[in-house]
């Protein structure tokens, strides 16, 4: 009886005060100091890097660091993979990692901040502001100066970009999400069409929404079913945040803007405004509305969950997508081998009209911002920074990207090459390959050069370079590309050199201003857009304007102008900070 009352209170109190209760959230790893095997690493200390003077003196006593990563890493193998074992041997460090399950780690990071218990290292992506506000991260400036020659070398001219903000010039984060001096060799975005569609239509020009629509329409009319099931001309994945990737981002891409998150940044005045408010984008959604009403857009485009979306793609029934390859890649893999790859997708720089240029490759320079940070709970920040420094060394980067010489790659004529059987395994059984070798699992642990950068030996740092990319294409893809006179999909897109680098990088990775109203208004605006865009697209053509305008009206009502002003200031501060010398 009393029990009942207590349980009542408990149920509600526990739920809401989860923040207080979740004291175990941070979960600092235990320091399993097995003092026994420290000599192994010490004797085999052949740190090749001559430049790395400090590394020789590095303490190699085994140490365990706990880590939280905001991106899912389903193949994480607790460092029992081959690369992981070498890392532990060379640095003495074992990482005890925990990863977000999928999508965002916002809640988890909020809980960390509320409980005040942090792992030793954290990769917080866009939520780093919450940790900085809570005073959870330590300033790395001096540590880098003292212990990290490799970090200094790799970041080089971008050191200025590591500083947190104009007011707070501490370095909290070692950017490791983006690669340094990356050259993109392939395109993974734009508008997608299946190879079989292109082949049958004789490789027509796909440049505008109209071209794209015609291709879908013509092919769909001829082939209303695929393997006995209805063909789906075009579908989207708008499950939670994915609505940005396949729903709202294509609106600015198709109307000739680079990716600045939810904002359109005026290139001259740096004035920020929600991109969705631009009249051009209304026309993009009007087109989607038309597609829906003509039966070309999947009825379930705005209802289905990601797994339904992927299962449709894996069945080969979907002719066209508006997505990024990382969003549907695993589904495409399932059908890659069928008919030489006829059901895989090609990428096209489709825009609203021929005079609008796709800005997918508008250069940003090195994107600092998202990266790995060391928290105040870290037992030994010096060892942690030395570990990250080693990871950034040439030896560390090659290990992370290529694996172990003689196992995952060989050196022929002084150049690293991947043996054919390994390459095959890597493409066909990527999950097990990743789990066993650990290649790709240590991406965020320290900075890395991008594709196209060569090390002193003349080999590329990464395993993505033109020959390797073309080798990964299916026959159908090669055929399509040949027909368009291109070697990679990227050749179809406007080149980097056609654009001017934005002095603020890209607006999506400017930390959210810590104004309490900012987050609330932003969230409200997001709610409105995520709800109204589907409504507008699914409306009858005659009602489209009404629904769309009511969205614009609602956005005005939540005082969007206020946060646009705040953000304008943030962009201006960023420009000032990054251009300072």
């Amino acid at each position, binding site marked *: 009886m009393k029990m009942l009352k207590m349980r009542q209170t*408990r*149920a509600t109190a526990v739920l809401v005060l989860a923040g207080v209760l979740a004291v175990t959230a941070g979960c600092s790893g235990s320091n399993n100091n097995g003092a026994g095997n420290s000599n192994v690493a010490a004797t085999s200390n052949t740190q090749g890097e001559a430049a790395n003077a400090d590394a020789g003196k590095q303490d190699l006593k085994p140490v365990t660091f706990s880590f939280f990563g905001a991106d899912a890493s389903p193949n994480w193998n607790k460092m029992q993979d081959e690369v992981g074992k070498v890392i532990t041997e060379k640095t003495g460090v074992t990482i005890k990692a925990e990863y977000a399950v999928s999508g965002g780690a*916002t*809640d988890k990071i909020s809980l960390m901040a509320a409980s005040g218990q942090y792992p030793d290292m954290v990769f917080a992506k866009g939520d780093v502001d919450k940790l900085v*506000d*809570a005073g959870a991260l330590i300033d790395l400036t001096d540590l880098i100066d003292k212990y990290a020659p490799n970090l200094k070398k790799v970041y080089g001219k971008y050191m200025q970009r590591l500083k947190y903000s104009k007011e707070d010039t501490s370095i909290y984060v070692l950017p490791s999400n983006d690669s340094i001096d990356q050259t993109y060799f392939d395109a993974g975005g734009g508008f997608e069409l299946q190879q079989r569609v292109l082949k049958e239509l004789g490789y027509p020009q796909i440049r505008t929404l109209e071209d794209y629509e015609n291709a879908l329409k013509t092919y769909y009319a001829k082939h209303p079913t695929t393997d006995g099931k209805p063909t789906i001309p075009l579908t989207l994945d708008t499950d939670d945040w994915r609505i940005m990737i396949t729903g709202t981002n294509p609106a600015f891409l198709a109307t000739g803007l680079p990716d600045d998150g939810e904002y359109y940044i005026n290139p001259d005045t740096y004035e920020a405004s929600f991109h969705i408010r631009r009249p051009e984008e209304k026309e993009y959604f009007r087109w989607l509305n038309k597609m829906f009403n003509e039966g070309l857009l999947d*009825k379930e485009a705005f209802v289905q*969950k990601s797994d339904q979306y992927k299962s449709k793609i894996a069945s080969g029934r979907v002719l066209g997508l508006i997505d990024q390859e990382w969003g549907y890649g695993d589904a495409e893999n399932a059908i890659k081998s069928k008919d030489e790859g006829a059901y895989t997708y090609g990428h096209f720089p489709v825009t609203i009209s021929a005079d609008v240029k796709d800005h997918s490759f508008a250069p940003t320079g090195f994107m600092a911002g998202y990266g790995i940070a060391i928290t105040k709970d870290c037992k030994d920040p010096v060892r942690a920074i030395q570990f990250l420094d080693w990871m950034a060394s040439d030896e560390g980067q090659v290990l992370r990207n290529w694996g172990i010489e003689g196992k995952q790659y060989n050196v022929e004529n002084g150049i690293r090459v991947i043996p054919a059987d390994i390459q095959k395994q890597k493409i066909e059984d990527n999950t097990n390959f990743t789990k066993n070798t650990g290649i790709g699992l240590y991406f965020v642990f320290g900075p890395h050069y991008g594709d196209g950068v060569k090390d002193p030996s003349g080999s590329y740092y990464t395993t993505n370079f033109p020959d390797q990319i073309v080798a990964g294409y299916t026959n159908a893809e090669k055929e399509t590309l040949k027909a368009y006179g291109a070697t990679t999909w990227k050749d179809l897109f406007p080149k980097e050199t056609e654009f001017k680098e934005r002095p603020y990088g890209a607006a999506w990775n400017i930390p959210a201003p810590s104004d*309490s109203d900012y987050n609330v208004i932003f*969230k409200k605006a997001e709610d409105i857009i995520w709800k109204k865009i589907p409504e507008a697209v699914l409306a009858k053509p005659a009602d489209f304007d009404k629904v769309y305008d009511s969205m614009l009206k609602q956005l005005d009502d939540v005082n969007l102008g206020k946060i646009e002003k705040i953000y304008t200031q943030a962009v201006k501060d960023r420009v000032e900070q990054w251009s300072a010398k």
Partner: protein
Amino acid sequence: MELVKALTEKHPAAGPDGAALAASSGPARFWKVMKSQKYLYFMSMPFVIWVFVFSYMPLWGWTMAFQDFKAGKTFGEQKWVGFKHFQELFTDERFYLVLRNTLAMSLMGLIVGFVVPILFAVLLNEVKGRLFKRTVQTISYLPHFVSWVVVAGIVTKMLSTDSGAVNNLLMWLHITDEPIQFMAKGNWFWSIVTASDLWKELGWSAIIYLAAIAGIDPELYEASRVDGANRLRQMWHITLPGIRTTISVLLIMSIGHLISIGFEKQFLLGNNLVKDYSEVLDLYALNYGLSLARFSFGTAIGIFNSVVSIFLLFLANGVLKKVTKESIM
């Protein structure tokens, strides 16, 4: 254990040594009772500690609702703001929308999820074939052990317009020519949630009633049969009154839980199109509280939740006490 303790605390005279203790009074009596029942007290201690740690200690966190809580600062450094967060909460239109959704879905859940299991239990009780009865019972409560993530997947697949089972059936029966977009219509959402909840919990909720029915004296049935009562009469006059106490207790508890219905179902089944119908209080607290690091605001929602729950619990208890003489307090 709790029960014994509570009983003996309230009515010491009813305790095992009641007669001997009735004469003494005040603290002396308390200590005497305590001494004579030390083993009972001892055995209940772990539970008291458990309840204290998990139910009462977190209440300290309620202070957050009256501060502009910033993570990383000590308690002394927080800024006190009084009822600011409550004002913000009660002036937000969205709050009333989610409150409506919460109450609508829990009321629907309460009515359906309360009446149907009772009916199911009573009917199942009438089944004479033992094997059949057991089989039905087992099958019906199995879904209880399936996680909501999986159930949501099944429901969305079943209701899909892309060869979903329900739409296929409706079209085959010529009830509709076009597949119905169940998941895209806000006004369907509450029913879908209620129905899937019923499917998942029906068998499980029925177990307790079946147990209560099993406890009814068979002689009552025999006697009624002699009096010429048919099966329906027996159900009405013996089975249902026999489980009245159980029904009342569970009803009071369900009413107490009205506002805290969790968010898994709504979170997993909802989508952007039906958001105005799917967002419930807990989801609102998550989206506008925790996710935005507005811990104080989230706590304010939590307090509102608790206060309403306690109020509803007492209300239900009071009303039922008056009407049926059954109560849990």
